[in-house]
């Protein structure tokens, strides 16, 4: 598989001198489903706008199929966008919204009828042709926006939080729909979301961003199982992150206690972030434990209970199928391979 889009050292500074993107480099493969994941304001939309041609980077290059396309206006790029709030044309009905791109390119009427028809079928909007887009539900508007972009047969589809405005059930349905469409049409999708679950379930590759920097690029499994730093670990799943140090290989000390772990190769007594997932904390009787805490609250989450436990100087989040009553003292233990040791990220 070859790279269809490549970003090289993208930097974006706005007038006030604030750096929004600080050196973004990324290769996107043909037919890949790539997701930018990160908290609000981290620069996801900005990166997408650079690929779409709506924003010129302060420095750095954008390549499309190996050709540098900096400065090429959006209407000359073989890329289409599904905008964050759909941006449908309010003066056109569903059919004309979808046909818009084809009409601009002076496609023959016969071809327009055929392709718009295909799209209406694909997004399940047959019978809505004449409907004003102002009288559609959020989910329907969403599907018009997708059809309007896809009808142009772009090589790459950019989607900026396309499901953000939908309710949970619809969002789940559309996630599956979108993934199906992407695979059926063999397109490259560049998808933006701040919802980690969405990113993990849909993508081939997840690009975790924070503060205008890429934190990690990898498959959903990699990102989930091997987060490279505390930020990724925390963002991907709610995690317990505490300060620790490594007195020797395979031993980590935190909260004044030593634990077995499987990580090595740190400097002696190097300070590290210790990341432990809520489902990896084992609840054991307090008198047998090295670490104890008082259960503050218990919430049933459907499959498991989520407990907040007040330790000495950390509030632990614990997922367990068995609830301990609030106010009781519990003990905590961890298997060595469930303790993730991460180098401290240097402050920029």
């Amino acid at each position, binding site marked *: 598989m070859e790279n269809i889009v490549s970003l090289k050292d993208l930097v974006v500074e706005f007038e006030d001198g604030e750096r929004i993107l600080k050196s973004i480099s990324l290769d996107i493969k043909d037919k890949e489903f790539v997701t930018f994941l990160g908290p609000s304001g981290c620069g996801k939309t900005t990166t997408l706008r650079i690929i779409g041609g709506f924003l010129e980077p302060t420095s750095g290059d954008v390549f499309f199929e190996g050709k540098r396309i900096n400065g090429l206006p959006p209407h000359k790029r073989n890329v289409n966008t599904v905008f*964050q*709030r759909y941006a449908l044309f309010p003066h056109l009905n569903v059919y004309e919204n979808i046909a818009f791109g084809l009409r601009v390119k002076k496609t023959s009427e016969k071809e327009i009828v055929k392709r718009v028809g295909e799209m209406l079928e694909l997004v399940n909007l047959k019978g809505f042709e004449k409907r004003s887009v102002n009288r559609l539900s959020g989910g329907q508007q969403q599907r018009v926006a997708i059809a309007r972009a896809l009808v142009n047969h772009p090589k790459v589809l950019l989607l900026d939080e396309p499901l953000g405005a939908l309710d949970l059930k619809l969002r789940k349905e559309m996630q599956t729909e979108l993934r199906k469409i992407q695979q059926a049409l063999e397109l490259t999708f560049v998808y933006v979301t701040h919802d980690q679950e969405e990113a993990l379930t849909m993508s081939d590759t997840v690009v975790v961003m924070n503060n205008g920097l890429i934190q990690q690029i990898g498959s959903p499994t990699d990102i989930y199982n091997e987060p490279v730093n505390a930020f990724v670990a925390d963002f991907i799943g709610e995690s317990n992150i505490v300060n620790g140090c490594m007195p020797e290989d395979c031993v980590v000390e935190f909260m004044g206690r030593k634990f077995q772990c499987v990580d090595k190769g740190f400097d002696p007594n190097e300070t590290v972030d210790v990341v432990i997932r809520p489902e990896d904390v084992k609840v054991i009787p307090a008198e047998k434990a090295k670490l104890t805490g008082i259960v503050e609250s218990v919430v049933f989450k459907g499959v498991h209970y989520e407990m907040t436990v007040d330790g000495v100087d950390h509030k632990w989040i614990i997922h367990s199928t068995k609830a301990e009553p609030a106010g009781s003292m519990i003990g905590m233990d961890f298997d060595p391979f469930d303790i993730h040791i991460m180098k401290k990220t240097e402050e920029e």
Partner: protein
Amino acid sequence: MKQLRVLSLPYLVWMVIFIVVPIIMVAVFAFTTSDGNFTIDNISNVGQYANIFVHSIWLALIATAICLVLSYPIAFYLSRMEKHKQGTMLMIVMLPMWMNFLLRTYAWMTLLGNNGIINYLLGLIGLGPFKLINTSGAVVLGMVYNYLPFMILPLYSVMQKIDKSVIEAARDLGCNPVKVMFRVIVPLSLPGIVSGITMVFVPAISTFIISRMLGGGSNLLIGDLIEMQFLGNAYDPHLGAAIALVLMVIILAIMTVMNQFSPDDQVLI
């Protein structure tokens, strides 16, 4: 609902006293003689002023067209500026309106006069003097100058509601800037175009001060004609009312045609 109806009562009373009643009175005057008998002579007499009607409509149309062409890019540019700058710029556009209408028009008299500033400056570089004042062109200029803001404002107010992302979507789907203009901005600003045309055309077609001050004797407009029947030496309020009535019907007809272009089910975001 009920409360709203009560709140609109003062306005309804106002409408009846100051709009409905006067219109009825104009109609009554138009169809009566000075001793109160019914007649259609007034209306049929209006026909002899057809050339003045044509001239007025013509000048008003030209002025409206010029206003539209000038205002459209201004309004678009304004609407795309950063929000906090728009207010200031809008105020600058409105600034001439703070000056009295008569003064503004009078100022043009001294600028355009045969010995006026413009001819003086042209004289310095060896041109002219040109006959600027007392021409149809001067009347049109006066109309454009005075009514331009009435075109800019409604255009600006619809354009400012056009979401930036809709424009980006058009570019994304293959529109160059010209196509963005004609496929998205113009259709979406149609209601503003219609109301801008109305707000310029109606006062322009019925003005009498501008033609009086800048047009000289040869540019008599409908407004002057009506004024003469009420305040001038041609005193004949019944004919004046008839002319006013015919003018009203013409304006109404034009507006009805205009409104066909304004989409009614369009909800701007």
